[in-house]
């Protein structure tokens, strides 16, 4: 064991004519948490795949404890003490934790019989040492994502990893799980494990790092101390100055044209996913639905769109009932809808950008005559929207799957905002989107509000909620914990997200133990 120093010298990786990594130098000192910050597609993951032996570098050198090494595969990297936790877990869902940890590294007794007890013991040891709380006999598919991630970390530790690469580990985690992961990283560091932390989330990077290396377009563009401001980091990452705070005029709410009354939505088993929720959104106002992922937000928006069965209660838009209508009817009544997951629900990956821009408009007389698509009109529409929303693409005829996440999201937003709306709903409008695009997307959403459209946002990112919302509705276990002003404190929202209603939460904050009740160690909004 012992700590380990890692050095990358002039690592270059080419894919054909594309240079994914361009002469990257990186030193990870033993026992430090070193963050690799960069936008999606900047080359972070490529670099780590080179380090882990998955890609062969086109040029450059890897040094472990000042000795040059070459890795022909992950097994070489593991033997050198490097472990990696991929963004997408490499676990067999139907196996137990112990079986997964043993996989590829099976301890065997006499006659080659599998000795799982030995693995179980190791898991319990590591679990106790770092407070992982992982049962070696639990089946993977029954575990929450955060625990699955810990299993991945255990896998690396069982193989004596002294440097751990975490590739976008927080992308799949809830805010609570993220906090727990940050704790774990601290403990690992204290025990002498070096960590390379890959992320594009500034807040987390600042919270955990000893040092930060920023990568842009395959090159190291700078290093920073965690004390650097988020604006500085963001500017370094994007390559131009970025404003992280939104210039937003105060809302001028008009008539409450969108009303949800006593809405209850059940699943097939009869459990309430949305439980007797009542609130409304006024014209020219943004209401954000906050809550930890999986507390009924997704179901709420899907119900408005008409995708859900077992709906009780009433959803009124301009006095007209939306419950019981088809998706097409809801869209036609003037609802713009940005789904939570653009890749599964918002876009058809193999369709061109132009086609995706009319995915729910192709039947309108602007884009078709009778049964025939009006290709010319669709192309013209695409050109206009690509220009208006600054979608970075070579051609409107390129498959939308070739775009970056931010540009894909722009396509979805462009489509949904390209007709006169009476209600605009956006779920996770900036999830997986680079910083530069977030700014743009937020501005467009506020612009829609300023035109007098009622806007409903769902986001699990508290930053985003606080940035956009004029009022905030908090959901917990499908129930509405209350609707509070947009400038409410993080502490208040955190308590409500954990299941206290607005009054209880306020009372709690006024009480003597309020000091402990912070949600995340964020900078002031």
């Amino acid at each position: 064991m012992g700590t380990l120093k890692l050095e990358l010298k002039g690592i270059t990786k080419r894919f054909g004519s594309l240079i994914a990594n361009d002469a990257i130098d990186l030193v990870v000192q033993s026992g430090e948490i070193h963050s690799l910050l960069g936008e999606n597609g900047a080359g972070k993951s490529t670099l780590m795949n080179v380090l882990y032996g998955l890609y062969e570098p086109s040029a450059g050198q890897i040094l472990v404890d000042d000795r040059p090494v070459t890795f022909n595969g992950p097994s070489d990297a593991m033997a050198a003490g490097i472990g990696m936790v991929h963004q997408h877990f490499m676990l067999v869902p139907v196996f137990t934790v112990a079986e997964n940890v043993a996989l590829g590294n099976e301890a065997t007794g006499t006659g080659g019989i599998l000795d799982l007890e030995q693995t179980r013991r190791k898991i319990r040891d590591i679990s106790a040492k770092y407070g992982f709380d992982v049962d070696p006999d639990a089946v993977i598919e029954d575990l929450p994502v955060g625990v699955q991630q810990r299993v991945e970390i255990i896998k690396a530790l069982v193989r004596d990893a002294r440097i751990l690469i975490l590739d976008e580990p927080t992308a799949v985690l809830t805010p609570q799980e993220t906090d727990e992961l940050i704790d774990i990283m601290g403990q690992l560091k204290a025990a002498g494990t070096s960590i390379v932390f890959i992320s594009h989330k500034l807040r987390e990077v600042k919270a955990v790092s000893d040092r930060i290396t920023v990568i842009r377009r395959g090159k190291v563009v700078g290093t920073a101390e965690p004390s650097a401001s988020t604006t500085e980091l963001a500017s370094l990452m994007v390559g131009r100055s970025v404003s992280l705070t939104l210039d937003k005029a105060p809302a001028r709410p008009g008539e409450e044209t969108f009303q949800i009354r006593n809405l209850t939505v059940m699943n097939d088993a009869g459990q309430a996913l949305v439980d007797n929720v009542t609130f409304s959104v006024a014209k020219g106002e943004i209401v954000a639905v906050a809550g930890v992922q999986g507390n009924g937000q997704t179901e709420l928006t899907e119900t408005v769109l008409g995708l859900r069965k077992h709906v009780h209660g009433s959803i009124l838009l301009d006095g007209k009932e939306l419950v019981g209508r088809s998706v097409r009817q809801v869209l036609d009544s003037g609802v713009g809808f940005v789904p939570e997951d653009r890749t599964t629900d918002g876009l058809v990956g193999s369709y061109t950008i132009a086609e995706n821009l009319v995915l729910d408009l192709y039947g309108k007389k602007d884009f078709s005559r009778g049964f025939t698509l009006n290709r010319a009109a669709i192309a013209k529409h695409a050109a206009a929207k690509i220009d208006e929303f600054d979608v970075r693409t070579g051609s409107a005829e390129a498959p939308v799957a070739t775009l970056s996440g931010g540009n894909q999201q722009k396509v979805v937003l462009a489509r949904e905002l390209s007709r006169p709306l009476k209600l605009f709903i956006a779920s996770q409008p900036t999830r997986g989107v680079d910083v530069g695009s977030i700014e743009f997307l937020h501005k467009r959403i506020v612009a829609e509000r300023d035109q007098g459209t009622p806007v409903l946002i769902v986001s699990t990112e508290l930053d985003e909620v606080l940035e956009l919302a004029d009022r905030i509705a908090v959901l917990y276990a499908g129930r509405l914990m209350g609707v509070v002003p947009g400038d409410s404190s993080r502490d208040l929202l955190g308590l409500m997200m954990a299941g206290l209603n607005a009054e209880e939460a306020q009372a709690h904050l006024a009480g003597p133990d309020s000091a402990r009740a912070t949600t995340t160690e964020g900078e002031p909004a």
Partner: protein
Amino acid sequence: MSDNRAAPEAAEAASAAPAASAGEADLTGTGTAASPGAAPGQGNRILREIMSGNALVSVLAVVVALVIGGLLIAVTDERVGAAAGYFFARPGDLFGALWASVSEAYGALVRGATYDPTARTWLGQLGIFETLTIATPLILAGLAVTIAFRAGLFNIGAQGQIILGASFSAAVGFGWNLPPVLHLLAVILAGAVGGAIWGGIAGVLKARTGAHEVIVTIMLNYIAINLIGYLLKSPLKDPNSSNPVSPALHDSAVFPLLLGPNFRLHAGFLLAVLAVIAVAWLLNRSTLGFELRAIGANPSAARTAGMVVSRGYIIVMLIAGALSGLAGVAQVAGTEKSLDAEVAGSIGFDAITVALLGRSTPWGTFFAALLFGAFKAGGTSMAVNANVSIDIVLVVQSLIVLFIAAPPLIRAIFRLKSASSRGAAA
């Protein structure tokens, strides 16, 4: 902080999982295909990969299949065996014999399928028209597989749909008395309706109950095969024949021959070409095609965009069934002129191969069907003129399927770059 952690972890986990796909790894074509919303499963993803591989893979699969077929022809040729016996004395003889054997066989195949200047009669010289005749039902049934696939359904049921279409059109063809043109139109329509019913059953079951179309269509094939056996025992049987065949269709009910009585090529071929054009228009230019393709590529996104996925499934299976039904019409009213239990031959299954080879595009399917027509037409000539068993054609056809089904194999042989390796660079 501790208060906040009280949130229900199980509930989080359930819906946090999809968030993984929204992370750094942006969607690729195949990634979208595996969208969880409609649960197409891994099997479907593999099928999709096979069905939508690039044209080069199709062409190379044919080339490799022909090369291996050539080897088989060579090793079974006596001259080659004889020359191999004194290989070390005169090695040139072996290669000469190899070349002679393979080039004779494939030469005969190509001439038989297209134009053979050596044939004694000018009728025999023009094998190309036989190729077109054999290709006609394959084009139509191939389209039935193609269009269903574009909407995300794997239609294995062309065979049953052909049988139903053939039965309906035969019943109208010998059972009704109508003026010439009208009668043929009625026969065509009846065939389309018969096929559409059979396809529609699978579509409705898929849409309403989620029954997997592969299972349903396979079972419907069996039902159709036994149904035609029954129909030819009593209701549709020719009373004057001791065999299980229907009476001959009236003259007014059959496709006119395009090139006089010496060639079998009939107007059904024109119908097939029209069908290719219609399907190409439907898929690429119409609003319905836009919906169907969206449903096939990403049903969740289609649903969110207001399309009704279940309706799309029903519509596309009705269309696919109608196209297969037309293939049945081409058999009954084109070449056979009556109905028997073998009316569909292996067309319904060859249609799947044809659609595969044509990468599930209408014109790709058209040319793949022509190729298969040529194999069949030329195979006879090969057997007669080069003394090579006609079975070798079947072997080549099977090899084509094998190589198309294993695109990585073809890529490895020709060192092509795979589509997915480009994604890794992003």
